[in-house]
């Protein structure tokens, strides 16, 4: 801080502090406190606000545990509250999305970092970036077109004889969430690819050659050398993809059916359709908690710091 | 014209660490003064205090007789040349040089003219519109000097400006710097840990160790009459004997060692532990016995170094001695294995405090 004063003087240093303070306080900390506070208040008509009914309680959170319904988890038939079911499904399929994105992008990251001629890398990356320049809404929409009953995918598959007749992908084939998972993977796979690629570029190619020289087969080289080195990138990519997938509202709404519910949709219904901001706040807070747990869990698991993830 | 600089009991602490410890020195106007010392001894810190980037913890600094307390770097008549030069990479050469003038509100045409003038002074005509990355190391060096000179400072502060250059270029730039200093008459305060550089360029040298100024003198005195073992060892090689001071008379003393009795000049010992120091080039080989200050030795190795010949020998009492003999036939050059004596003149040998001057 003394350094700042010396270099930029009082006025400028004050300006830096003021700007940063505005950002952190007015845009981050206080809004989250407001969220927290609101989540404990009842949803009341305007006239009753501040009245005797306006007391703190956990009622909003209790709604999360209302109306149980049947759900089978790994073959176990359980009775679980509907919103909790949505929550569990969201987490579960977000993990699936993360894993699928990792499996598909890992070879590409390695290809870019270690296999292809370095000269072609910028061009390839530019090509890979194109979908990112196109908005998420449109990317989801593209898959909507592809997956519709009379769409090109069915036409190709039926034409090739893979399918006997067209399939309603959005209703789900394997699970209710097929189309959503497909859309989420497509939308966010690059957020997995680039961090892993970045981590891999710093790996000394000699290490790979040394391992091979010592007789390690390719898969062992990956397991023992490349994978451990890419760990920060994998952590970063996984957190990003999980967060984006779990937080997505566009993709589940565009590609989902009535049989697939995403937790963001539950929040949206509370906030925008019921206009019950208090319950919405409670759900949001639960969601925030989930995200925090995931981020810190991954940081623990991969032994990385926040600055490794956020880049 | 140059201004004088006075450091009065200057101390600089970083937390509990004392980087500069009670330094007193008066640098004369127009002088080329070097601070010489090993890495981490506090040289840069002194320079930063003079230029105003650090404040002394206690003590006073005066520039041209005026106190500097509370004056910011841009209010002092000093210009600093950074260890890494700190040229502005996004500006052209002439914009770099004219930056200080621009800050003073000088018009563009005038600035450009002044920059061209300075480029001529440092022999870089034609480089005005290049970018910094287009220049060689030596050229960058000169741009840094020109940029500092542009603001017409009374004092130039140079922090190891040659350390990034190759040996040959370094030697060339020594002469150049010295010439620029003579031409401009600006006081130069030069920092280095290279004793050759300090001795070759400076009017006076201040040798530092562990934050304390050990000795301030002209280069000859620093080399020939070091005040303690640290200075003697830092600026050159020595044959060193441990022992005790015997009878003294008019600046000379007897010195008793395990290798014999010697007579030598007695330095300011201040009651500290002492040793006897003799430079290898002041040490001779002789076959005559009974000469004053001689040690019986067997020659181990004779190495031909070009301009001189270095002779390594072991005394019968177990000491290792080195003599550097002139390669002009005027001195006796022994052969390896030969027995004889290493000897030195009493006036060339000094009894000095063993270590450095420490905080009182």
């Amino acid at each position, binding site marked *: 801080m003394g350094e*700042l004063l010396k270099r930029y003087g009082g006025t400028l240093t004050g300006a830096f502090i003021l700007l940063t303070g505005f950002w952190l306080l007015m845009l*981050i900390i206080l809004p989250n406190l407001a969220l927290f506070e609101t989540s404990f208040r009842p949803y009341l008509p305007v006239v009753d606000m501040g009245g005797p009914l306006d007391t703190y309680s956990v009622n909003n959170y209790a709604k999360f545990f209302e109306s149980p319904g049947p759900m089978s988890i790994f073959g176990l038939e359980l009775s679980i509250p509907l919103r909790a079911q949505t929550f569990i499904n969201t987490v579960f399929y977000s993990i699936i999305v993360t894993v699928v994105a990792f499996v598909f992008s890992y070879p590409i990251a390695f290809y870019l970092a270690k296999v292809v001629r370095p000269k072609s890398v910028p061009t390839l990356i530019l090509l890979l970036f194109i979908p990112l320049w196109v908005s998420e809404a449109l990317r989801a929409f593209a898959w909507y077109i592809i997956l519709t009953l009379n*769409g*090109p995918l069915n036409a190709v598959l039926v034409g090739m004889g893979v399918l006997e007749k067209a399939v309603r992908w959005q209703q789900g084939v394997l699970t209710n969430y097929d189309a959503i998972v497909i859309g989420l993977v497509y939308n966010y796979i690059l957020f997995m690819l680039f961090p892993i690629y970045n981590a891999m570029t710093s790996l000394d190619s000699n290490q790979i050659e040394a391992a091979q020289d010592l007789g390690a087969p390719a898969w062992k080289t990956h397991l023992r050398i490349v994978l451990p080195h890419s760990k920060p990138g994998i952590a970063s990519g996984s957190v990003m993809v999980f967060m984006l997938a779990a937080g997505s*509202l566009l993709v589940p709404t565009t590609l989902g059916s009535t049989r697939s519910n995403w937790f963001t949709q539950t929040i949206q219904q509370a906030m925008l359709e019921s206009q019950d901001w208090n319950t919405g706040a409670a759900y949001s807070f639960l969601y*925030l908690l989930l995200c925090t747990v995931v981020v810190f869990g991954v940081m623990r698991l991969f032994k990385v710091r*926040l600055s490794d993830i956020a880049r | 014209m140059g201004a004088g600089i006075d450091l009065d009991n200057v101390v600089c602490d970083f937390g509990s660490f004392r980087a500069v410890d009670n330094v007193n020195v008066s640098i004369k106007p127009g002088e080329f003064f070097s601070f010489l010392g090993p890495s981490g001894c506090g040289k840069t810190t002194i320079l930063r205090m003079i230029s105003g980037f650090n404040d002394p913890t206690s003590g006073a600094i005066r520039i041209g007789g005026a106190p500097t307390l509370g004056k910011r770097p*841009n209010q002092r008549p000093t210009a600093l040349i950074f260890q890494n030069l700190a040229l502005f990479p*996004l500006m052209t050469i002439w914009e770099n040089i004219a930056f200080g003038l621009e800050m003073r509100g000088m018009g563009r045409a005038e600035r450009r003219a002044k920059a061209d003038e300075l480029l001529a002074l440092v022999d870089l005509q034609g480089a005005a519109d290049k970018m910094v990355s287009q220049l060689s190391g030596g050229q960058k060096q000169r741009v840094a000097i020109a940029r500092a000179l542009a603001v017409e400072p009374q004092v130039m502060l140079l922090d190891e400006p040659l350390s990034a250059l190759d040996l040959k*270029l370094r030697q060339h730039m020594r002469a150049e710097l010295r010439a620029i200093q003579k031409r401009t008459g600006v006081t130069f305060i030069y920092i280095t840990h290279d004793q050759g550089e300090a001795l070759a360029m400076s009017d006076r040298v201040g040798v530092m160790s562990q934050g304390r100024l050990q000795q301030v003198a002209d280069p000859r005195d620093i080399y020939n009459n070091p005040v303690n073992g640290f200075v003697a060892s830092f600026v050159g090689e020595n044959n060193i004997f441990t022992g005790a001071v015997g009878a003294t008379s008019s600046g000379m003393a007897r010195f008793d060692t395990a290798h014999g009795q010697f007579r030598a000049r007695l330095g300011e010992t201040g009651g500290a532990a002492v040793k006897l120091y003799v430079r290898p080039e002041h040490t001779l080989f002789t076959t005559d016995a009974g000469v004053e200050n001689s040690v019986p030795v067997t020659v181990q190795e004779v190495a031909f170094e070009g301009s001189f010949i270095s002779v390594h020998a072991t005394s019968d009492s177990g000491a290792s001695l080195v003599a550097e003999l002139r390669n002009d036939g005027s001195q006796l050059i022994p052969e390896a294995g030969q027995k004889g004596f290493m000897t030195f003149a009493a006036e060339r040998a000094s009894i000095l405090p063993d270590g450095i001057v420490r905080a009182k």
Partner: protein
Amino acid sequence: MMTDKMRKVLYHLYMGSFLFYLLVPLVIMSGAAFNNNKTPSVYPWKGFSWQWFIELWNDGTMWTSFGNTIWVALAVVALAVPLGTAGAILINSVTGMTRSVLYFFMVAPILAPGAVIGISTILFWNKLSVPVGLHLSVLGQVSYIAAFVMLLVLARLQSFDQNLEEAALDLGATHNQVLRRILLPHLYPAIGAGAAIAFFQSIENFNVTLFTRGTQNTLTVYVFSKVRSGITPSINALAFMLIALTLIAALVYELRRRRQAALEAAREEEGRRASDAEIA
């Protein structure tokens, strides 16, 4: 055993199919813009037509949404760039616990779900009696987009030689001049990249906007509502134009980057040659 050559071929094939996977949906979507069919599709192909572009052109709501999107994005850039830059400069000058805490609060919104950011924004400003609307979308978006700017500027600051500032001060520059002439020029590439990212992130944004917008539309929200209620291929026409625009922008950017890199490399080469000549 697989030979190295076979493995390489496999890798190339995989890369090819990956690109195919990424790009084909966009091609299909663009293609549908030209299909003379009432629902957006490339199959069956009913002939080439410009009609969806004409319909798009005449779609007033689309134009309002488009205008809103641009305004919001510009406002986000105008706020996020100074906030993120100031944050980066500040965080770069502190160490230890203070730094970690500041960093956490700055970066956390990147990882928070957009819906939660949007909701907390309206709840907070509602308490200050600020109604919902696109101005809140701006504030909500800035809360996390400023972090992108901060990260970019911070990375750039790490390669900044602070001696340059001291040299400028020493040569008589005032604090303002140090900032304007030395620090900011060094940061401009990062600030420029930050502004671009902020702009595109804002255009992209859906989650925060949906909850904060009130009744106003931005392009993403408009597309979304169109996809939910009856769609016509005019959306595809829009998509096609956006894709074409971004492609051109990306191309221009890449060409300029290459030219800049070549220029810089040539200069450094000259410097190296001069150094070599000096020693010889």
